[in-house]
């Protein structure tokens, strides 16, 4: 079963445990500035929204890369950056419509979410289930259930 990250901003408290976990997993340190997942705070609205790569099927970052440094990981569908191939041209960062692939000035390479090879640390760290790793074929199941519960004949 292929899985994907599922994000429910309504459950997010903005604690940044996901960013701490991501940076630890991928950079070996607690360093939110190097996290591949970012939580955006919309202060005046009182909203917290985690955001990261959705692993597009037709991944424009991968299409745009002139040196084929971004490759499909067939086991989990993630598009992974091969650091030793990446030349740091940043064309992928322009191609990505969502901004979720970024240049790292320390390494001269780009970084993006690779689903931690199939066990995303952000989802494990999230204390409120705002970030989960679930069946990619049914990411709408929670919303369906929520709306189903609002139908007239549902018990409340």
């Amino acid at each position, binding site marked *: 079963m292929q899985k994907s990250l599922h994000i429910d901003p309504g459950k997010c*408290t*903005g*604690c*940044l*445990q996901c960013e*701490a*976990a991501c*940076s*630890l997993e991928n*950079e*070996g*340190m*607690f*360093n*939110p*500035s*190097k996290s591949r997942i970012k939580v955006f705070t919309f*202060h*005046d*609205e*009182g*909203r*917290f929204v985690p955001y990261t790569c959705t692993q597009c099927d037709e991944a424009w970052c991968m299409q745009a890369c002139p040196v084929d440094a971004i490759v499909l990981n067939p086991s989990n569908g993630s598009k992974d950056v091969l650091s030793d191939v990446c030349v740091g041209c940043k064309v992928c960062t322009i191609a990505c419509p969502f901004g979720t692939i970024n240049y790292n000035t320390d390494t001269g390479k780009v970084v993006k979410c690779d689903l931690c090879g199939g066990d995303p640390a952000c989802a494990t*760290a999230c*204390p*409120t289930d705002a970030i989960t790793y679930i069946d990619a074929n049914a990411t709408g199941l929670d919303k369906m259930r929520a709306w189903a519960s609002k139908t007239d004949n549902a018990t409340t």
Partner: protein
Amino acid sequence: MAWTRKLLRVNLSAGTCTTEALNMDWANDYLGQRGLATRYLVEEVDPKCDPLGPDNKFIMATGPLTGTNASTGGRYSCLCKSPLTNALACSNSGGFFGAEMKFAGWDMIIFEGKAASPTYLSIENDQVELISADDLWGKSVWEADKMLRAKHQDPQIRIAAVGRSAEAGNLYAAVVNDLHRAAGRSGVGTVMASKNLKAVVIRGTRGISNVADPKAFMAATTAAKTVLAENPVTGQGLPAYGTQVLMNVINEVGALPTRNMRETQFEGAADVSGEAMHEPRKSDGKPNLTTNGACYACTIACGRISTIDRTHFSVKDKPEYWIASGGLEYEAAWALGPDTGVNDIDALTYANFLCNEDGMDPISFGSTLAAAMELFEEGLITTEHTGGMELKFGSAEALCWAAEVAATGEGFGAELGLGSKRLCEKYGRPELSMTVKGQEFPAYDPRGIQGMGLAYATSNRGACHLRGYTVASEILGIPEKTDPLDTNGKPGLVKAFQDATAAVDSAGLCVFTTFAWTMDDISPQVDAACEGDWSTERMMEVGERIWNMERVFNMAAGVGADQDTLPKRLLNEVANSGPASGKVSGLPEMLPEYYELRGWSKEGAVTDSVKQKFNLPA
């Protein structure tokens, strides 16, 4: 090792910023944050200095767990000699500023001297710079935050700043970070402003990569998070209702100080409770509470994010307050509500917004207003003083007006900025001030929760709930239930809570974790992060060492054992309703035993043998 081992010293008089190695001998004895910064303060600040003069220092300090993924590991503290109490001030704050300071590579920042003109400090990792704040002076925290963001063009900076209240010399001004988290108590913001320091802006991208035993650390933090999640208080009560979960509970046990602590129960408590914050209002069908929010790395998320009813008189013509922002926590709700007799939750939320916007401690503000209301009732303060406003208990209009004038220090706002003690002295009724060592009480009446009377009287920063929260035991049964109306056993309980809290603070963790965590949950996290053996016993020893050192500083500052007392109202006037009816505080029964347990003299002095035992500076 989790410390960055680096300290930034900023001499504001000379305009210099220098890097120093952290004193690791001291870190081994005092851990970090509150404890370690107190050690520096004791070394460097004359206890007799003028708190608002250039000889006082202002320290921002993180702990070894600040910035890690330990739950609640985002705390920092502001320390200095307090202008409100003349004792040691140490105010703790959450949000994201403390963690960012650590990510930038700094354990601590020591500000000394005084800048010639308004200044702010900009930190981007190793690049530190003092920059003119002429344009920021006279602006609120919220406005300064906006201006700094526009100037720095970096959405990820974290900002701590003081507001107009601090600039005006309000003696309980706070340092506000991340718009609505505050190092709130004892006037640390007043001291920051007295140095012409408007703000500290930090961007840190270095991270923390030196945890001593990463594997053990992950195991310890993960296990501890599970404990928080499974505990009914930290797993359910606090996320749902915040600390406001306490409003109805404390009212029911008859320990909710009301109308300047004349009474111990408030008839309007339910109207301003955590439950009330969930109630949809008539005007727009939305509740006061918009959502709950967490500080850095916190898996509890007790923070309240609220909106004010747009049709409420306080904001109907002020769209700038129609936003979601930091809502009512229990202590603020109590001081702004029951203590002033106001049961209008939107008025309380508005006053709370203003406290955040211009950096005032809502506890001291509300409590000072309550004293002013009693003085008004007695005819000592009149509409001539206030410019027409009737300062009546229960008046939401008076509360909102008072917050507005205190926030800027204009007119009667300057009187309110004196704090309760000086205000009551000025108007000839010092006994109406509900303070210890000059600092206003928080939200637990010692007649109904006896342990808190001793905790307040002996707190090293004046009346405070966060120095020894025996409410946990006496009301909530954590770690075990004790009778709140009984003084027996309370000296030992108070001492244990005081010592443990000092250690928790010094780690960089939030004391609210201790609703669920014991020191046995905390010490493995510290032990895995830091070099050396950090057992529960050592943590408790560190806590006791810190407590004694704070006391030594205060004694030298002239804040002695004669101030280990409570206002006469609490010692002589009985509670008039509820379970505590007929009770006064039993402080006199508890204090001698407390001194004895501490190993102090009968007069409350820290003895030479205690100083030697804890290796305190001579």
